[in-house]
């Protein structure tokens, strides 16, 4: 018998270590389910879930949708680009209209940090944050930590370097919270312009030299340069970024011990990660994607509430 301490998953900041462990244990079972010939269980057959995406997404949306289908939930998809949001409807009105059609759970991605938190205060349905601006992306952090646990046995005591555009990354913040709650040591590495000013207050180490970061860590989580969020120039050119912060196979082969390379996707091959590094034995990028479905199944299964 077990339950999450929260009725929403808004961010890793709000959940406990026990919650994370419960999600992992449940995900173990779902990972088993999605590797069976019949990859489906009827658990959520009386639950309706709306995927409300105000921002573009391929992986996360597909992953959530598959997770929902494998739990037998009914789904409606909504994307802002083809909706009345364009006509000037507010977020709360949009969501309340969806809920009026008897939806039990909302999976939301929004460009504004805190949008799901705002929604959680005003509506009754369970909310899963699928990324809010540059703030949090909890399910990504859970699947990253889960993949580390699967690959290395546990997260506790492991050294994880998050490398790249930390400033614009919601994955970085959620990862820092999740890894620290599970007892890992976290380092962030990137050009000074792409590291947030007060990031050290979170208790992470800061490194500007990517070679040193790779030497230090057991796991390198490489992040994408989010050009779409960069209104000003943070570095001279992509080529220069790639020269100083890009990771290639040779760098990985020259390390004293083998490390695990992760990437939340989409990869810009040749920028933050070279093709030979992304396709090497070090990388567990596709395992992360597989685990994403299991983690999201676990989260939605555990959030589904008692029928009244």
């Amino acid at each position: 018998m077990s339950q999450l301490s929260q009725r929403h998953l808004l961010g890793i900041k709000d959940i406990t270590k026990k919650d994370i462990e419960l999600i992992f244990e449940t995900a173990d079972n779902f990972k088993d389910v999605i590797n069976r010939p019949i990859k489906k269980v009827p658990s959520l057959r009386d639950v309706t879930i709306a995927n409300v995406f105000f921002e573009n997404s391929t992986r996360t949306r597909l992953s959530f949708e598959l997770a929902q289908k494998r739990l037998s939930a009914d789904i409606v998809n909504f994307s802002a680009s083809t909706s009345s949001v364009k006509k000037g409807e507010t977020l709360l009105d949009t969501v309340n209209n969806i809920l009026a059609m008897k939806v039990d759970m909302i999976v939301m991605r929004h460009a504004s940090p805190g949008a799901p938190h705002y929604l959680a205060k005003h509506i009754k349905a369970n909310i899963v944050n699928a990324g809010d601006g540059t703030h949090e992306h909890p399910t990504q952090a859970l699947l990253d930590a889960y993949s580390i646990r699967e690959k290395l046995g546990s997260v506790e005591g492991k050294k994880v370097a998050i490398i790249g555009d930390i400033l614009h990354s919601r994955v970085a913040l959620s990862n820092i919270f999740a890894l620290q709650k599970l007892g890992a040591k976290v380092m962030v590495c990137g050009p000074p312009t792409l590291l947030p000013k007060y990031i050290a207050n979170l208790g992470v180490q800061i490194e500007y030299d990517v070679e040193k970061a790779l030497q230090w860590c057991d796991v390198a989580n490489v992040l994408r340069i989010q050009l779409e969020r960069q209104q000003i120039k943070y570095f001279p050119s992509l080529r220069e970024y790639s020269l100083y912060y890009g990771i290639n196979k040779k760098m990985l082969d020259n390390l004293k011990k083998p490390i695990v390379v992760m990437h939340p996707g989409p990869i810009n091959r040749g920028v933050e990660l070279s093709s030979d590094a992304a396709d090497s034995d070090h990388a567990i990028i596709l395992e992360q994607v597989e685990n994403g479905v299991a983690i999201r199944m676990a989260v939605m299964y555990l959030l589904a509430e008692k029928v009244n």
Partner: protein
Amino acid sequence: MQKKLILDSDLLDITLSRLCQQLIENHLDFSNSILLGLQPRGIFLAELIQQKLEKSLKKKIQLGFLDATFHRDDFRRRELPVKANETKIPFIIEGKNVILIDDVLFTGRTVRAALDAMIAFGRPAKVELLVLIDRKFNRDLPIAPNYVGKSVNTIASQRVQVEWQAQGNKQNKIWLIN
């Protein structure tokens, strides 16, 4: 709280031997039959039966564990969700004679969920149900066991407590608790 011993260790051993003889009577050399223990507690009984069968038939008997948590019909109706356990079926059940094994048969809802969960792994030729304790007159569904260790008359408020050595108890014992 009153506790009444239904089966002690010796009687349990005799009962298990009888169940194994009944199984052998119907499945002969087990060439096309497999055992499937239901999580969480049916697996201990299934392991004991496997050991006994292997001893008398002098061959390996296939045993799998089945978890029906995600197929239960009381999800979102209980106060707390039930924690899932491992499913381990390292063989093909298509066309096999499957013997489902659980410790206590009460409402029959777990067995219904288990049948549902099992179908995801293939279509068995035949499915039978073996239970150690059959709580008569408490069934919610039309489910009946093929092999019964002991039938007991109980009322719904009573509880059957099964203690397995494999779970760290001193002896295998089955209690009826008021």
